[in-house]
């Protein structure tokens, strides 16, 4: 039982661990962030490189009054956390690309039923089984558009172990506030690296708004968000994945009602883009500006430290909805350089909102960008003439 012993280190007692400094890997930090945020139900399925989150939750949740269940697949994991959420628990699952694909069906269900829940995707190289142990950011578009139909979601991107903790807490608050699935789009590097981490004390918890008496289960408030009718609390409501009216009842043959429902569910997120902006803006007067999220942010920061004042940087902690208004802050920008561990998924999103030329700096295979590679990309910005230029590193 050597593995079991490893899990029972002195810090994994029966308490919510806050107020301490630890040396954790990102996946452990994520699990502790979830527990600090009040997550008490986790359903998951083993998959590299996210498994440590499930293992940590399996070890910790039973000791603090929570429940862990290992489901038969990721379809079931996603289904179970939606069920758990309606029963009143802050609920989470964690996976990687192949499992994320399987979850897409019930992510759509969570979107149309406006079910708060958190899905962690510790990204690895794809497509398909790809590179299970290597880092990537290849699921960013799938996070936004992976399920069928029109909907909107929120996706966060951590670039450090501390952010694995902090953004997991934030993910739960946003899920409850906006009644939506929230994705924590990490990657293998951040999930498996160890760093010093402060387990913050008394993290802020913003609970979901319970349905009030006399309020209809799917009737939006002034923010476009209905109250949550937790099962077992006497609301006696019907929840369906069919297009539904404000009572929550199926109403599938009205074009007007369908459009109104879809638009409200999209708008409740898209119209709160300002509130949903979580970025770092560095050197806004710079001419060459890096835009990054997740692991590549670390290399961009190194470059900025090496050559202070030379480059600008927009770091995204919330990637979806995309904070397009932040691009305007870089008034002198002549080029946006977008290093990503994919073939330029978010670079395409940047392109939608700007006429400034874009340099994409894709890197596949699992290794992080080096500082020199970023310099090469920045140099290409000086000579590039086309609206979008890909630099082969």
């Amino acid at each position, binding site marked *: 039982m050597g593995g079991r012993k490893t899990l029972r280190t002195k810090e994994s007692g029966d308490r919510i661990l806050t107020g301490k400094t630890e040396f954790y890997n990102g996946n452990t930090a994520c699990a502790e962030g979830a527990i600090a945020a009040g997550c*008490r*139900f986790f*359903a998951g399925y083993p998959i590299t490189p996210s498994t440590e989150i499930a293992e940590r939750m399996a070890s910790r949740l039973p000791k603090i009054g929570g*429940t862990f*269940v290992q*489901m*038969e*697949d990721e*379809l*079931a*994991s996603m*289904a*179970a*956390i*939606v*069920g*758990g*959420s*309606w*029963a*009143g*628990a802050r*609920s989470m699952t964690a996976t990687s690309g192949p499992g994320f694909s399987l979850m897409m*069906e*019930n992510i759509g*269900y969570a979107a149309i039923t406006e079910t708060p829940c958190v899905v962690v995707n510790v990204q690895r190289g794809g497509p398909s089984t790809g590179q299970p142990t290597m880092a990537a950011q290849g699921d960013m578009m799938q996070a936004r558009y992976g399920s069928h139909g029109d909907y909107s979601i929120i996706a966060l991107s951590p670039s450090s172990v501390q952010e694995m903790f902090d953004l997991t807490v934030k993910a739960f608050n946003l899920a409850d506030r906006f009644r939506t699935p929230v994705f924590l789009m990490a990657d293998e590097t951040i999930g498996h690296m160890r760093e010093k981490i402060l387990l913050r004390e008394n993290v802020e918890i913003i609970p979901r708004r319970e349905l009030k008496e006399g309020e209809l289960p799917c009737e939006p408030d002034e923010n476009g968000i209905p109250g949550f*009718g937790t*099962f*077992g*609390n*006497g*609301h*006696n*409501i*019907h*929840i*369906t*994945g*069919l297009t539904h009216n404000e*009572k929550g*009842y*199926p109403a599938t043959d009205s074009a007007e009602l369908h459009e109104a429902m879809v638009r409200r569910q999209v708008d409740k997120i898209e119209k709160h883009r300002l509130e949903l902006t979580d970025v770092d803006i560095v050197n806004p007067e710079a001419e060459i500006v890096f835009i990054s999220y997740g692991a590549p942010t670390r290399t961009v920061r190194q470059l900025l430290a090496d050559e202070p004042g030379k480059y600008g940087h927009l770091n995204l902690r919330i990637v979806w909805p995309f904070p397009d208004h932040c691009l305007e802050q870089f008034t002198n920008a002549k080029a946006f350089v977008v290093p990503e561990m994919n073939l330029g998924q978010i670079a395409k999103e940047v392109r939608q909102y700007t006429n400034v030329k874009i340099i994409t700096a894709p890197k596949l295979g699992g290794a992080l960008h080096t500082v020199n590679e970023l310099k090469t990309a920045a140099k290409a910005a000086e000579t590039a003439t086309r609206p979008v230029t890909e630099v082969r590193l």
Partner: protein
Amino acid sequence: MTLEDWYRQDRLPHIYCAGCGNGTILNATLRAVDALGYDINETTFVSGIGCSSRAGGYTSADSLHTTHGRALAFATGVKLVKPKQHVIVFTGDGDCSAIGGNHFIHACRRNIDLTVVCMNNNIYGMTGGQGSPCTPKGSITTTTPYGMQEQPFDLCKLAEAAGANYVARWTSFHVKELSEAIKTGLETPGLAFIEVLAQCPTAYGNKNKLRQPTQMIEVFKNNAVKKAKADRDAAAGIPLEPGKFIVGEFVRRANPPLGVVKE
């Protein structure tokens, strides 16, 4: 709380075709729930997709109408978070044993404290009558126009082998026995699986010389062999006649369940 109060009155009339057996099964289920005197606030219905799964929406309790085949996985989440809830799952033969087959066997293996009412009408009714894993050999459906070639599942044997604590089969003809079985299922800790053969005159009977709803109910009445008799016959070496099927309680056991509140 009366039996009528368990119906979501402003959702009626239901969408079921004239002659459909599903309404009878919903009625038998709600009679069982009513007879046990359950608190509506401690009762939750979960269902998948298909004709069967519309039943949850006609109950006045909290109900979760989920995705195709996944009702048991959603119900697992509800039950584990709120073990005090009586969680009843409505599903159909396609929902439960085709697209949901993996969730079905694993819910039985976990022996999670759910009561599953499976309306088996041998067909995909909602999509217009395609063959299902429970379509009998030789039956005509829109996807088996020359007769079903594959052998059907025995859902009760599947549930028993996978570990469910309570397994029974009845039909929409045997309403009293059905209601009693659902009641027993609800009172048995662990997974209770009640398969109910239901007539689908519109999509199944229509193509299989059983156009009238009463014809299919006659088939249920005449071909159902009670478990005790089937056991006696088997002991005497008399095989079950072709076309006949066994009804009754197959399993009632007390294996450790999941999701039961500790006293």
